[in-house]
């Protein structure tokens, strides 16, 4: 029998085959229903039992050998085809991407978040009030009577519309009216902060007609000035991330607090940069004091039993100090390059 011949021919044909279709045809020609090897197997039935055994074994051997050869050739061809496809699909990976502005959160937002979280850890919840205020809430209720020189400390924007007292509405010059609104609404103990927009007619590199402040108010039976100092020192340590922080409280005057204080943080200038915490120079950070009993009485708080403190600070100012920014006007310019340079990515927010 020409088993060896068949194997030799099949091996050669498989070897020469170069694509899947051709190989499929070879498979049919040898192993298909009418294929050469199949025919040979069919012809076994004419042989004797002994021959059947020996020839049959040889034929089966042949069939599986050819089958294996085809299978491995199949794989070979497939790999070649994929390789050639990969080659065709190759593109230039060296095109630099187009420029795009990296989106950021405004630094003031980051400060808002941090202020809310630091004071939150000290038990302060957030309160709010409107930007367009009545003269009463912005001034009179805070013990700033009409014609008082203190009114001139804060150059006020007025709105043409008038309130029920016939006085023009004002753009709040500070967040302090939220103290009044909260105390009229809630019974002490009260422990709140109120961040928000504030307005004064002033415009230069450190003053903007619109800026941000946060107000703090803590009223209970015994909140005292030592607590006030502790609270604000703790806040500044956390916010400016300086554990060894030199501070100074000095007497000042706000009509709505008595005694009043301003808090300064020590700093020094090293390599043309401000370094906060130590040094011989002082930076004013905030104003604070014990809430003037006159203000509490204006809010119907029983001053025999309740006392407490309040503080207010410029959020733009502490943001500028923390990140070394110099021009407040750029905060509100809507300049996306500035935001990309000075804002915060989601991971840092």
């Amino acid at each position, binding site marked *: 029998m020409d088993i060896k011949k068949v194997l030799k021919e099949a091996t050669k044909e498989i070897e020469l085959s170069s694509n899947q279709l051709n190989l499929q045809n070879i498979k049919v020609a040898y192993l298909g229903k009418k294929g050469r090897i199949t025919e040979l197997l069919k012809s076994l039935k004419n042989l004797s039992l002994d021959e059947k055994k020996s020839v049959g074994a040889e034929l089966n051997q042949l069939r599986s050998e050819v089958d294996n050869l085809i299978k491995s050739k199949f794989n070979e061809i497939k790999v070649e085809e994929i390789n050639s496809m990969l080659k065709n699909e190759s593109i230039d990976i060296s095109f630099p991407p187009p420029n795009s502005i990296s989106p950021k959160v405004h630094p003031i937002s980051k400060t808002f978040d941090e202020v809310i979280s630091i004071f939150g850890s000290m038990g302060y919840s957030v309160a709010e009030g409107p930007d367009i205020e009545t003269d009463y809430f912005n001034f009179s209720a805070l013990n700033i009577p009409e014609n008082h020189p203190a009114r001139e400390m804060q150059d006020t924007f007025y*709105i043409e*519309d008038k309130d029920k007292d016939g006085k023009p509405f004002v753009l709040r010059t500070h967040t302090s009216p939220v103290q009044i609104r909260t105390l009229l609404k809630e019974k002490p103990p009260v422990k709140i902060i109120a961040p928000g927009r504030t307005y004064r007619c002033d415009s230069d590199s450190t003053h903007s007609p619109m800026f941000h402040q946060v107000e703090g108010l803590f009223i209970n039976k015994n909140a005292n000035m*030592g607590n006030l100092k502790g609270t604000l020192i703790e806040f500044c340590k956390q916010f400016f991330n300086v554990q060894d922080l030199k501070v100074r409280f000095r007497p000042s005057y706000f009509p709505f607090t008595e005694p009043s204080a301003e808090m300064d943080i020590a700093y020094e200038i090293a390599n043309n940069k401000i370094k906060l915490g130590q040094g011989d120079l002082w930076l004013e950070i905030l104003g604070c004091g014990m809430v003037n009993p006159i203000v509490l009485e204006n809010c119907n708080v029983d001053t025999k039993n309740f006392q407490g403190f309040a503080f207010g600070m410029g959020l733009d100012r502490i943001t500028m100090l923390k990140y070394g920014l110099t021009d407040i006007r750029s905060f509100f310019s809507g300049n996306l390059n500035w935001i990309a340079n000075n804002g915060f990515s989601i991971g840092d927010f």
Partner: protein
Amino acid sequence: MKFSYSWLCEHLETDKNAIEIGDALTNIGLELESLSDYSLYSKFVVATIKDFKKHPNADRLNICKVDDGTDTYQVICGANNVKRGLKGIFAKDGMYIPGTQIHLKKGKIRGEISEGMLLSERELSLSDDHEGIIELSEDFKNGTSAIEALKLDDPIFEIGITPNRGDCLSIRGVARDLSAKGMGKLKPLKFEKIKKLEFESPISWSIKNDDNSCEYVVSRYFKDVYNTKSPEWLQKKLISIGLRPINALVDITNFITVDLGRPLHVFDADKVGKKLNMRLANSKEKILALDNKDYTLDGNSTVIADSNNALAIAGIIGGDYSRCTENTKNVFLEVAIFNPNSVAKTGRSLGINSDARYRFERGLDKNMVFEGLEYASYLINKICGGSVSKSIDAGKLDTNEHKIKYDFKYFNKVIGLDLEPQTQVKILNDLKFQINERIENVCDVLVPSWRNDVKNEIDIVEEIIRIYGYDNIKVSTPFSSEDEINNIENSIVNKKFKTISKLKKNLVSIGISEVITFSFHSNRAQEILIGDASLKISNAISDDQSFMRNSMIFNHLESAELNFKKGIKNIKLFEIGPIYNSSQSQENILSLLISSQDNTNSIYKSVNFNFYSLTEIVSKLISSLNFDIKKFNISRSTSNIYHPGQSAKVHMGKKLIARYGKVHPLIMEEFPKLKNTYAIELFFENLPIESLSKVNSINISDSQFQFSEKDFSFIFEKEQNLYEVQRYVTGIDKNLIKNVEFFDLYVSKDLGDSSKSVTFRVTIQSKEKTLEEKDLEHLHKNILEKVSNKFKAKIRT
């Protein structure tokens, strides 16, 4: 307020130096704003120009030979007062020049070596004078330090005085407060009373006190005075605090204003009538004041007048006509107490900020009236000679002393510091407060006449701690209680701020930058966006900031334009902040703007932004707030901000949740550079806050059984809202219909103008089993029938 160390020492006997005094001032609430420090100036020395010649290469420059007592230097100098023998102030190579803020460097100027510099006053930061180099008297030896030669050994303090401390608007007042702090002893005032008051004043007073604006006035007449330049000691004092000497009479009043805090006025007695009075001004009454400006008064201002004219605006400024000049022969001195409120009102309405107004409106020490009168009389008589009349006065001086009930324990409660009553009493006594009728811890405190800001018990506490020292207050930090933590957790405002932070994060994560813009609108924006006219700012800084905004879109377009001009082509920005509908209605919204140029980059291809891209952002934002946009009512927006055909509004019940779309072409005409501009306004405060703050409240059903998809095409009426169709189809079998997604719109002439053909794909999946063919067929049939019935839609095949 400005004063020199030596002037302070005329009132304060002290062994403290200027730096110690400066620290003490800040510690007692008189904040030191600056203390001139001339220690640097010891390196500058007196030197003589021995000789000079013209610079060969520069007309205006001279080559000087300068002798500083040890060496001779060549100095190139451009001053026009260069002369042989001139003694000036010399700075050598390497020295820091304070006025120009540079370090001198030896070098050539137009080819000639210069080894130093002769200084002007401006270069020494002493004044703005740059007319020439400083010329000193010939008596100074070369090599003498500039500190000695220029008498710079008298430090100048500048302090900030808070509005309550009118008592410290004088050098005496500051000295008094420092003495209470233990910084020295207050000296008695040193002047002699005039012994011979020889005649009755020919001018008399009356007060027409319609407004209680003048409580008391006292005067003297000075006959035959000789008004001349002030003596050097007086001129120097005024110059040291930045005041310009004028003539003796005027300088004396300025001096007493600063020294005692007692403003006074001198009239040229020959220019005023014999009967002076205090009265309210007539409406539209005019006066030319000392500042050479004409003021028109109203009926609320008090004036000093004779029978003809207003002569001065009471407590604020004198009149030009009756001012004292060097020709003045007879003088009428006025010392008065004016009501702080009326002075403040008049001063503000006329816009006059004078030293007198500043002091009157902060309240004067009423007991100073007579000291002021005597001191001024003494000085006028001493400097200008002549004779002095007896006093003439009007009104009644009310010096009722103020008494406050005080409990020593109150201090401890407010400050959190146990301070013994005797310590408190000592501080109060040092401040000249008297303690009366003390019974154990309670007493009456008598307030000194100059402290009219001290009115209540808490003010006493403040006085004590101010002197005791804020540094001595023990620090203790109250941390949060359980109640407070609960309050924070339940606080609606806290939840709102959390939501705002979440929105910000989401927006930045999809490539949109946060901006913060002013709460204002320009005139133009107001006109176009038709805000509430009563929100006009009466005293706006500029036309760009003249209204309160009722939308942020205009600000954002301006910002987009700015960024476009900087070369940024694809602008994506948002702001979360307030808009104002009226003076009593403000809401915080999210406003987002996307303005993109057509993408011409053939490598980085991206689909151009359109309305549907915007819809996707809105949907994502709303779902980040735990709501499903598909459950809201969506209709065309009627807002004039948006393109009417490419904008939508989202409602929950009656509440507006969002508006979005292409910005109206009429608005975009203001911003011709910007193309393809879209905006979203999300009124997140209208959503129920409880839902916003929940985490992940949307339920998406998940099933492991095989799903099937089937497409349906219907011809609807053109204005058919597809959100409605989607909601309806989903509702046909909530258990099986998992998703309904639109993917094709077809409009054509064959369909007619009033129809549209829409194709959507329905995803069907059961949670319990793999659906059989017959279940599916049943559902398909159901959808076809129900949709065509409900919406009168034709099935398209």
